[in-house]
Each structure stands twice: as structure tokens, then as C-alpha cells.
């Protein structure tokens, strides 16, 4: 998994509280406070834990898909990445392996034109990503990533082909990154405000879908403002609860490196605890010792 797909988790049933617990690294975080915010993972929801490295998850998805195929499961895997990720070796390794192994996996590329400050013209000179799938012998779909229904239908078709025909499918969803890459990024340093505003005002996929549901009589402005205020309250509540919850205990620093604590880690835990006793002022008070 990459760290841009909280929507998938939300859809599968990850609660706002579970999101908040991970972001605050409290004792209820399944990752035990070990990773940066938005590195979610859920065994219950079949969602492998996110790592910060780019595209390393792609070969994993192929291996996992091979396992599903060997177990004769009516299922496929799906993995997500951006345009920048397609320059990584792991992207090419994964596509080639998936094609050769006939693994039921969907590669979903969110081509939003920017890898932090690097535009796609400095990323590749091919006609986008979709042609790379074809070159590996993978059936590939290019879809307007700002058209919710088109994306839904493309993924639905991809899933059917992947499972029924035991084959990988690549989807390239063309879109634009309106926001900054992260809280430490100011994207107006490398692209024009006009460009951003153009996409925001005229091509916003949320606006587009809203218009469709409103025109279809499925949704109204009142429904929307109610939902927004309701979700806002729930998020704030989840954040408050997560913030108050204590951090994971110190023991969690040492567990899970291996299935059992080896002797060197037992020794290092004793040393750390001795130092804490001597210099308690050096350590955060909210981590239970």
C-alpha cells in the first residue's frame, strides 16, 4: 500500500477513530506508534501496512496475488502508486513478474502530473503509463481520473478480468494534484497558481460527481452541508480522543523486531530503563515505562 489511499480503508470500514489513533501514534494504533502519520495498516481489512518507500509495495502485490491464485480464491489484489513511482525499478519488476506469473493483480496508477516538484515531462517521455503496461504484455486501461463513475467502471471491469482470467491489469487514472505534496511542501514554488486554480475551479472530480448526483436527484446541497458538518464533528471528536490516549508502552520499542526478543534487545531494554531512572527529564512523560 502507498500512503495516498485512505479512501480505500474508509470504504472497507476503517473508522475515523482508527485513522486518528494511527496519526497520533497512541496505544490504540495498530502500528504501536512506530511509523509516521498516515502509515495505516489493517489485518482485519486485508490492507498491508504502508511504508514510506516508493513502489516497493508493487512486487508484494504480485506475490500476494500469486498466493490467491494458488489457493484458488475468488479474489485479486490491488496496489496503488503515482506517476513518479513508475520510474522505480520495483514498478518494472512488478509488472514483468505479474505478466509472467499470470497473477490476478490490479495496478492502479494515479497519474496526477507531479511527483513533489517533478513534472511528468521530467519523469518519462513515454505516452504516460498505460503504454508501459502494454509493453509488458499487460492489458491496460487509461481512464479520466476525475470522472468518478468512469474510474468505478474501469476498476470493476479490471477486477472481473483479473479474477476470471488470472491476469494482471494496469489502470492509469489521469488527474491533477491540486494540493501540496505534504505539509512541508509549498507547490507554488514550482508551478503557477493559475494552473492550480484552473484545475481546482474547472476540473475538480468532487464537484463533478456532486453535480451528477444532484442532477440525478440523489443528493442536495442540504444533504451535503449536513454531511460535512456531521463528519467534521466526528473527525474532531476522533482527534480529541486520540490525542488524550496515552502512548504505547516502552516495551513496544523492542517487540516485533523478531517474533521473540533476542538477548541483545533484552540487554538494551534493561540499559534504556536504567537510563530513564537516572535521567527521567530526558524522556517524554506520556510514554508509559
Amino acid at each position, binding site marked *: 500500500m502507498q500512503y495516498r489511499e485512505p479512501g480505500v480503508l474508509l470504504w472497507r470500514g476503517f473508522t475515523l477513530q482508527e485513522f486518528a489513533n494511527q496519526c497520533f501514534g497512541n496505544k490504540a*494504533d*495498530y*502500528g*504501536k506508534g*512506530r*511509523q509516521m502519520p498516515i*502509515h495505516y*495498516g*489493517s*489485518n*482485519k481489512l*486485508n490492507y*498491508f*501496512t504502508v*511504508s514510506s*518507500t516508493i513502489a*516497493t509495495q*508493487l*512486487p*508484494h*502485490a*504480485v*506475490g*500476494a*496475488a*500469486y*498466493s*490467491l491464485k*494458488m*489457493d484458488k480464491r475468488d479474489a485479486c*489484489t490491488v496496489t496503488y502508486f503515482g506517476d513518479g513511482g513508475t520510474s522505480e*525499478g*520495483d514498478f*518494472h*519488476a*512488478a509488472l*514483468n*513478474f505479474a505478466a*509472467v*506469473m499470470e497473477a490476478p493483480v490490479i495496478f492502479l496508477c494515479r497519474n496526477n502530473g507531479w511527483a513533489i516538484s517533478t513534472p511528468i515531462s521530467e519523469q518519462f517521455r513515454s505516452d504516460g503509463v498505460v503504454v508501459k503496461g502494454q509493453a509488458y504484455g499487460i492489458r491496460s486501461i487509461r481512464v479520466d481520473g476525475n470522472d468518478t463513475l468512469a474510474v468505478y467502471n474501469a476498476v470493476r471491469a479490471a477486477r472481473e478480468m483479473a479474477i476470471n482470467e488470472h491476469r494482471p491489469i494496469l489502470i492509469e487514472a489521469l488527474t491533477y494534484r491540486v494540493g501540496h505534496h505534504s505539509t512541508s511542501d509549498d507547490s507554488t514554488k514550482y508551478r503557477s497558481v493559475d494552473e492550480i486554480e484552473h484545475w481546482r475551479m474547472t476540473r475538480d472530480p468532487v464537484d463533478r460527481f456532486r453535480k451528477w448526483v444532484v442532477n440525478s436527484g440523489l443528493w442536495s446541497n442540504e444533504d451535503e452541508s449536513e454531511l460535512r458538518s456531521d463528519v467534521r464533528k466526528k473527525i474532531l471528536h476522533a482527534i480529541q480522543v486520540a490525542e488524550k490516549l496515552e502512548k504505547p508502552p516502552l516495551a*513496544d520499542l523492542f*517487540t*516485533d*523486531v*523478531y*517474533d521473540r526478543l*533476542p*538477548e*541483545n*534487545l533484552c540487554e538494551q531494554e534493561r540499559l534504556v530503563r536504567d537510563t530513564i531512572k537516572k535521567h527521567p527529564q530526558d524522556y517524554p512523560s506520556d510514554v508509559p515505562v
Partner: protein
Amino acid sequence: MSIPMLRLAKWGLISKRCFSNTTTCESGKTVNLFSAINQALDIALDTDPRSYIFGEDVSFGGVFRCTSGLADRYGKHRVFNTPLCEQGIVGFGIGLAAMICITDRETAQLQKSSLQIISFPLLIRHESLWSQIVNEAAKFRYRSGNQFNCGGLTIRSPYGAVGHGGHYHSQSPESFFCHVPGLKVVIPRSPQQAKGLLLSSIRDPNPVIFFEPKWLYRLAVEEVPEHDYMLPLSEAEVIRQGNDITLVGWGAQLALMEKACDDAEKAGISCELIDLKTLIPWDKETVEASVRKTGKLLVSHEAPVTGGFGAEISASIAERCFSRLEAPVARICGLDTPFPLVFEPFYMPTKNKILDAIKATVNY
């Protein structure tokens, strides 16, 4: 340069610390190292229907013949070639291994972990592998808070000098991986050890890198029990008792060290020789106990001396046994050059380099 393989034969019976069902050592056939590995892989595939072997040229039997016959016996879906791409092989293996976490949950059963055995017939030598091993395999359990793991993964790779390998076919990269929490690194010294340690590595619930001494594939011959047995990880073995100095090594280097011990004995020096077997997490206690007895330590490995695992052993023993040490810890290792071709005999930590260091340390 020749290595006296008959020495290996005399190490004979499986360690008494063997934790498998091998309490008595039934006699086996005399086989070489690659055949012993082949037996271990055969047993692994036979005892766990969810085990797979894949990698470069695995299907026809491998460049070193370690996977001979396995594709025929277990099918092309479980023993197969992959494209020539190391990062893809390891990444694929991680995903395959991690699926056991989901199927276990769904079936609410405690199965043995799914075993993947990856084979690199040549050598781990591609830096593109780094991210998959270091950032992915090693951290998979820790970063998920133990929701997921890829502990079924075992990565087999040849390592070490072979007399004509040059830069890329002779490297000993073990210390790189010893600096990565979450991995285990195991190196056997002989056919019998290789079979038992490989089966333990495959069944260990953590990712293991298993380095096979390339030089010994055909050269090392000893009696190997045909049945399923395991030798414990993270337990060193004293393979020669002595009182004057402790020698620590692993893999192919032990045969040279054994020969140096023989020569030292003729000069009246009694050496204790320890096979570390598992480099991380390593068995400090056995080495410490020996150094407390002898007061002197020599470590030897083929990898370059600077930053090699010998440095870690020296530092740890200096911490634990400082007042007991009667001489500086000696390190007889490879030079800090790329592994050379023509100059290999000069690069290598040879028997006489070891012997000289034994004498110098004992007479310090």
C-alpha cells in the same frame, strides 16, 4: 589454494544441542554440500504444501544444482524460474509470505508459517535488492505492530571466494545484513550443518538470509542423515576444545582455521575453535565463556576487515571480558579492496596469516 575437506568429515555427528527429533544420528549417505541443500529443500517442500522455491534458473536445478529434481517432483507452480530481477524476486516473496497472515486469520487456524525459499544461484550482488530486504522484509513485522510478517521468507545465496570469481562472484556481504534489525543471517560450514541450519532457517518465523559457501558446494563431503532434522539458530558451537586462544569464524573460513589450529598444536598451542553459525542474533555467551577461559581471541572472515562482523565481535568481547583479555583481539580478514582476481591469494585470510596471528597473540 586448497581446503582440506576431510577435516569437515571429522566434525562428524550433529551437535548434541540439536532440537529436532534427531536424538540419535542414524547413518546417512556421504554427500556434498549442494546435495545436502537439495535434501533440505526437498523436505521443506514435502512437509509444507504452502512452500515455494523460486528464483533465477531454479527450475532446471540451478547453476549449483541445489534445486535438481524439485520442479519435477513438486510441479512448476511451486518450483519455478522468475525473470532475472532480484528486487522483483524478493518483493514477490515478501507478498507471498505475508499472505499467510490473512489466510491464518480467515481460517482461524494456527498453521505453520508459509515458507518461501528464494534462490539466487549466483550471488546477492545487486544494490536494487537493498530496499526490498532492508526496508521491506526486515521491517514488515515491526512496522505493522505484528499485524503482518513475512517470516516465512528464506533467501538463499552463495557467498565467498571460489578461486576464480573476481569482484562479483566472490563477495562476502554478510555484515551489511547484520546491521539490519529484523533479519537473521545464517552461514553453514559443512553439508550436515547446511541441511539442519537451512531447515531451521526455512521454519523460523523471521526472514533469514542463508549464505552458502560457494567453495564448498562440491568440495565439502560428509555423512548427512537422510531424515528431517534441524539445528538451532543463534547457537554457536565449540568445534575444537582448547585452552590458549579462542578462534571464531563461520562458513568456509572454518576449514582454514581448523588447519591453522592443527599447525599451532604442533607448536604447542592449544586452540579453541568456535563456529558462530548465526551472525545475527549471535551467541555472545558461548564466545564470552571461551574467552574467559583462554584470555585471547582471534576472529577471521573473508569479508574486508573494516566494518566486518569481526569488528562487532571484537568490540562486544572487549566490553564483556576486558579484564580477562591478555592480548589485543586479532582480526585476520579480507583486505579493504574490492575482491581481486589475480591477487586473490594475497587478499585472502590464509592459514599461515591465521597461524602467525595465533602465535603473536599467544606470545603477546
